[in-house]
């Protein structure tokens, strides 16, 4: 109910918000989908990945290269982006899940860094960190121009709704409950007869593919594909968004992304040291609300918050 309410509120916002915040919210929704993907693995399965930018970039470049070099349409480009995200996350999962804890963090970080350098290495086609612009003609899906503000917002909303409802369905399904159990005590889950390795693999592929969807849609909506999106910064950001909003809550990633976006946007208007303000806010939140914003809501007001 709460989640449908959020989607309805976002739909209402489409008609009500002034242009600037309307555009911001479209961006935040796509990034929040990325955060939702991250939350699946981190918040629910308890696996801290430092390499999700690789999956985001796999979607971004799968889509972008398809449209730019293979002459695909928007629909086929998006499918290619999603497929490359699924393949890359399956490969990384197969290797990285042999480790756990700190080693898992390091292995995912290394994979993401290797992916980033690969993009730079094939600069001939990827245009390296300079990136490339997607032509307007490649950004029309079923006759809708995704570069127009209205369609862009609604497309972002559709993506966000799908990711949100999918996350919700997933964590309520038996599969999701096993993931939470793995997070809490993997040994016990294994003793109960579940194949925890297969569950973790599925969670990572689902998370990576969802991140790739967000990446592909981001490139499609905003018309730019570049290697900075594969850099380590974009692996850290979803972690921050999820931590801020509340790991292991379905709404947390959206709240965290929104909060962080406006924190940077508003503080950069006050000072050039806006990252300092963001940092202090993060430290404050970690000290006084270690579960994140929605985690705190769950603790204080509503224990059943999914």
């Amino acid at each position, binding site marked *: 109910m709460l989640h449908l309410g959020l989607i309805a*509120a976002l739909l*209402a*916002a489409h*008609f*009500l*918000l*002034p*242009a*600037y*915040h*309307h*555009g*911001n919210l479209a*961006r935040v929704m796509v990034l929040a989908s990325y955060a939702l993907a991250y939350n699946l693995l981190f918040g629910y399965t308890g696996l801290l990945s430092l390499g999700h930018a690789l999956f985001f970039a796999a979607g971004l470049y799968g889509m972008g290269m398809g449209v730019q070099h293979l002459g695909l349409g928007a629909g086929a480009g998006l499918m290619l982006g999603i497929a490359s995200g699924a393949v890359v996350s399956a490969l990384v999962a197969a290797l990285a899940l042999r480790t756990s804890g700190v080693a898992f963090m390091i292995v995912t970080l290394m994979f993401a860094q290797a992916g980033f*350098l690969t993009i*730079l*290495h094939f*600069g*001939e086609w990827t*245009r*390296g*960190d*300079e*990136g*490339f*612009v*997607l032509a307007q003609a490649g950004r029309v899906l079923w006759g809708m121009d995704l*570069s*127009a*503000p209205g369609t862009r917002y609604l497309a972002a909303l559709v993506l966000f709704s799908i990711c949100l409802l999918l996350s919700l369905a997933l964590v309520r399904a038996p599969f999701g409950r096993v993931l939470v159990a793995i997070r809490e005590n993997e040994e016990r889950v294994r003793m109960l007869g579940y194949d925890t390795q297969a569950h973790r693999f599925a969670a990572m592929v689902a998370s990576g593919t969802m991140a790739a969807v967000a990446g592909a849609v981001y490139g499609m909506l*905003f*018309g*730019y594909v*570049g*290697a*900075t*999106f594969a850099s380590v910064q974009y692996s850290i950001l979803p972690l921050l968004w999820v931590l801020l909003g509340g790991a292991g809550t379905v709404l947390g990633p959206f709240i965290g992304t929104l909060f962080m976006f406006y924190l940077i*946007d508003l503080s*950069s*208007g006050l000072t*050039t040291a*806006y*990252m300092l303000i963001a940092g202090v806010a993060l430290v404050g939140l970690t000290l006084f609300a270690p579960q994140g914003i929605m985690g705190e809501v769950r603790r204080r007001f509503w224990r059943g918050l999914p």
Partner: protein
Amino acid sequence: MTIKTDLTAISRRGALGTLAAGAAAASLPLWARYAHAQSAAPIRLGFQVHRTGIGAAYGRWYGRTVEAAVNLINEGGGINGRPVEIVAEDDGTDPKRGAEVVEKFANQHRVDVVFGPLFSHVVIGSAPRAGELKLPYFVVSEGHHVASGMLNRYTLQPGITDVKSQVISMAPFITETLGKKVTMIFPDYGFGYDHRDNLVPAIEANGGTVLEKIAIPPTETSFTKYFPRIPRDTEVLYHVMVGPAVLTFVKELGEFFGGQGPALFGFIDSLEAVAIDSPGLEFLEGSHFWEGMCRHAQPDQSEHEAFYRAAVGVNDRGASMADPRDVSTYGHMFGCWETLHVIKAGMEAAGYAGPQHRAALIEAVEAMEDMPEGLAHPQGAKRFNGRTHQVFGHQNISRVEGGRLIRVHRTSIEDTLYPDEVDYTQQPF
């Protein structure tokens, strides 16, 4: 258009009551001020500046140049009798933030035009949004991405020449004066490819050969391992690097050759914001550099350049007058000064009164051709190509002599021209 604006205005009133009241209220005064903008209200120019990130050294000096240029324009009565106001936003030298900043300029700050970014990835990441928002976007980036046709009708580069024209005008000097066997070292991304793709044919057209092309990844911090790839019969080493590691690069180059190597020809990008007499750079004595504008005051410096130098607060060695250790990005930053003067000239030619005249402003700039040397163009005369949205100008080659950069050659504008690759005027607004 006006009907649509009225509709959103009404629904915004609804928004105040219900959702996002705070956010909407915060933006309302700006909207209101904009709606009532009359002839006396300032012209608002959005300055997309690299205050943080790898472009920070350039951003700092671009900022100082912009401040000086705006002071001059305002002292002279502003634009169309209206004062100019700069609204600066940091893009963090990041393409994603760059695009967000463009949206902020268009929809929240309600600026008339945006100008100022240097780094190619920021320009390429932001330009699509500027085009979609129909916001004139004047870049000071040096990249070939404008004239290559990658961007759109709303993106122009009237204040600084592009890499392609710089490179092709350098090639004859290199082969005639320094040697015919060239090895090049360049950054392994777009900016470097502009050098590679244009230098090789230009050198060959002048009877030389490029022996080896050494691309260095932008994340590299140590360069010595690349130098053994330089062929022994190299006569000229052509180098161009950007970013925080440039000083390390140049020092390691010196340590590798120990003063015995081939002739060096570099782009001043390799040493922007770095003093040429820094310890460890002695080996650069006798080597040559391309300079967009000569950092060290030349004996024949024009009165306009002298004025410009004083206005931006730079001494005759190109360092801050307040702090001689603070070396400017002199070879590039004039682009901001000249861009602002082009915006002024364009707005006055178009009778610019508000955002409804943005297309007319673009057309007015597209119609520009020759820009004579003067206070508005202290680097020298320019020729603007309205079809490719790119300006062309004189290029300088300087030699390091006794710790000073002495100009030894200045190209003509004709030396820098090449056939059009795009005609933006065919694109609709």
